[in-house]
């Protein structure tokens, strides 16, 4: 009897310990952002103060005012939105279509084409960045939205993900629909897409995130000051040479972070890790 009580006690103690471990990690995950948030409300001098303070004294909005006053700020925001939203929609749509084809059809060259898709995943972006830039230039898309968005519309990872996920979806749904005489596009949009909703949602989050946070490609392909995306503009606004204005920088980062958080919180319940895992299980 005492055995089982002490067992239960030690179990509780152990569980408390593990819960504390997790709590530490959660705190560690959130705290750096809180610290940055706090810095964004400081004056520049305060951001360099020693000892550093968690609560700014005084709390000031001057960093935000300075960042929002940057010429073209709202245009940068718009550019990022266009780049991310259009790019994500297009990439997810095309990936879904391609994944659908690979998963639900048998056709000549299927294995070969899929291997090609996988192969391109291996090649680091920096190998092709200059040639890609030259291609874009040849098309006359340098410094345009087209150049910014179109190259990223083919997502090998997305195709892979959808295909793996779709292979698990029973073929019956589609056969039935075909027997009923439905058109292919109807089958795709009305039957396939909803069935793959978790995969699509996952892709939307990952794609949006990647595009919103992307600095390198917009840096290469845009020339005009007003064509910059938000994250690109912010990284150059906030630091010049040896000077890092920490409070302005923090404000800029907070502002750039908000849209990603919004998108994420809206779609978060659909983000199912099982989707990603379906990529690795047969």
């Amino acid at each position, binding site marked *: 009897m005492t055995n089982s009580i002490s067992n239960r006690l030690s179990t509780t103690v152990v569980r408390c310990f593990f819960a504390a471990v997790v709590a530490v990690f959660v705190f560690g995950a959130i705290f750096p952002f809180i610290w940055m948030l706090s810095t964004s409300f400081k004056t520049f001098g305060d951001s360099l103060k020693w000892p550093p303070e968690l609560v700014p004294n005084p709390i000031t909005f001057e960093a935000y005012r300075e960042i929002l006053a940057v010429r073209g700020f709202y245009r940068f925001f718009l550019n990022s939105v266009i780049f991310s939203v259009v790019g994500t929609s297009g990439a997810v749509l095309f990936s879904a279509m391609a994944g659908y084809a690979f998963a639900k059809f048998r056709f000549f060259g299927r294995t070969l084409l899929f291997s090609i898709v996988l192969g391109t995943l291996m090649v680091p972006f920096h190998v092709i960045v200059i040639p890609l830039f030259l*291609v874009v230039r040849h098309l006359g898309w340098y410094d345009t939205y087209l150049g910014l968005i179109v*190259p990223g519309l083919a997502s090998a990872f997305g195709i892979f993900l959808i295909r793996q996920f779709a292979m698990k979806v029973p073929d019956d749904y589609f056969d039935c629909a075909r027997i009923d005489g439905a058109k292919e596009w109807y089958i795709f949009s009305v039957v396939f897409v909803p069935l793959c909703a978790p995969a699509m949602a996952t892709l939307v989050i990952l794609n949006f995130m990647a595009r919103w946070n992307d600095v390198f490609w917009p840096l290469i392909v845009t020339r005009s000051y007003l064509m910059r995306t938000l994250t690109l503009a912010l990284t150059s606004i906030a630091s010049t040479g040896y000077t890092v204005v920490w409070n302005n920088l923090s404000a800029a980062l907070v502002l750039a972070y908000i849209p990603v958080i919004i998108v*994420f919180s809206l779609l978060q319940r659909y*983000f199912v890790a099982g989707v990603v895992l379906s990529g690795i299980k047969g």
Partner: protein
Amino acid sequence: MLGWIAMKKKAVPYLFLLPSFSILLVFVILPIVYAGWVSMVQYRIVDPSASVFVGLRNFERILRDELVWVSLRNTIAYSVVTVTAGILISLLVALIITKRWFRAQQAVRVALFLPFIMSVVMAGLIWSYLFHADVGLFNYLLRVLGVGEQGFLGDPRQALWCVAVMMIWKNLGYNVVIWSAGILGLPQELSDAAQVDGVSPLAEFWYIQLPLLRPVMMFLTILGLIGSFQSFDAVFVMTFGGPVNSTRVLVFHIWQTAFGFFEIGYATAVAWLLFAVLVALTVLQFKSYGKEEALH
């Protein structure tokens, strides 16, 4: 008439593939081929047709370029540490939060995911500020605790590991989510059977769960290493390759060679080296994890 319908039917999958593939062809495959040529010439920016063909000389130069090997060494060290530590730590967390007695599983996953969705630049700058040798929080805490202040990003012996810590922190949420899904996907009967048999939790983990989680581990390590090897933004924003080249990673070296010194041909050759390393890594991992987890 029937033939026409049959042809239309056959064309369907190709039509669905068309948008992705045409873009892939023009914007990925074509550049890859072009990049093959670029790496074998002395590329002239203003007038590419004036580029001089030099065959494998760019690759030969790699062999003698000390900085390439420094970069590769840094990249390997950084990647191994980041991926290994990241996977192990996240596994620990995932094991805890997937236990039946743990209530706040979804909340924890969401909280841990917040660092993952920010840009690397943002995470890098946040941690630069924390690691800041003069005004950073960490040095202040270290001083208060009586341990000496550290150079962190300014110390060549510490800088790379500070960057690694940032990256581990950032990817933790994603890794935990993947591990959780894997663990939750394990058949419940095994766990029940283990409890009935009186197997200790540790043994249950080591002998039952872990082998079944191999595919997940493989997935995380392969993708993790591929990603780590291409790391650039973190170093660019936190240390710019310094101090004393201690955080110079391969992609940084490629970037500097191309955009700093305008040696596009040579930089592309080094990029192909990166590609070769990635392929070798992936093949090695597939071999070591065994053929059972092929992707079909």
